[in-house]
């Protein structure tokens, strides 16, 4: 399954300034691994040391947050759109 992935500006140094890339796989996890194969170092941005998604990384499949589906095991279909978005947050405390 070939999926289109939206790359936000803070991550484009890894993808050579590309805002969209494509990758193949059957699940979101497969797709992320495929991106790492194409752009070594990508996983370091997305996963923590336990290879889990930290709270400051948001992944959307067709505009739905993947934790609302099946997380990394969410199945993908050809033509799906994946977006990986780092949190933008702050505040007084």
């Amino acid at each position, binding site marked *: 399954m070939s999926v289109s992935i939206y790359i*936000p*500006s803070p991550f484009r140094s890894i993808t050579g300034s590309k805002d969209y890339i494509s990758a193949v796989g059957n699940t979101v996890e497969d797709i992320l691994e495929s991106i790492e194969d194409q752009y070594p170092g990508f996983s370091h*941005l997305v996963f923590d040391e336990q290879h889990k998604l930290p709270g400051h990384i948001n992944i*959307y499949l067709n505009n739905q947050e993947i934790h609302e589906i099946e997380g990394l095991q969410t199945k993908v279909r050809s033509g799906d759109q994946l*977006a990986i978005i780092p949190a933008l*947050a702050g505040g007084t405390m």
Partner: protein
Amino acid sequence: MAHIPNEILQAMVDHAMDDLPNEACGMILIGRSDRQMTVHRVTNTAASPYRYEMSPLEMMKLEQKRDSENLDLFAIYHSHVASAAYPSPTDVRMAFFPPGETDNEPMFPETYYVLVSLENNKPDVRAFHIKKYGEISEESIESEN
């Protein structure tokens, strides 16, 4: 120096007031050619007086708008409802990716971080750059009509 039209400053203050008691957050986009600014409110998914988390989906849509309409991210703004218009340690930590890794370049090195304080009767709006190693550099605001 940050040149910001009065109407843009007022729009950020209005947003901060509208979202009380919680912090408000959003982005200012600017045209690369015409330098026209627009304020875009973003939902604070934390819905907290002490913290903001921009809706990732709304952020993505604004970034796609930037890409497709030849816009730049001029400023990221948020309010402090009961403290000064100055970046908190959390604001600085979250300006980096991964958060707190201040040895990296900040996520948006050219973008102003604008703080709107509602601590006092008169709102205070100040602009900053957050730089590598967490250095905070205040940029004076020149308001324009």
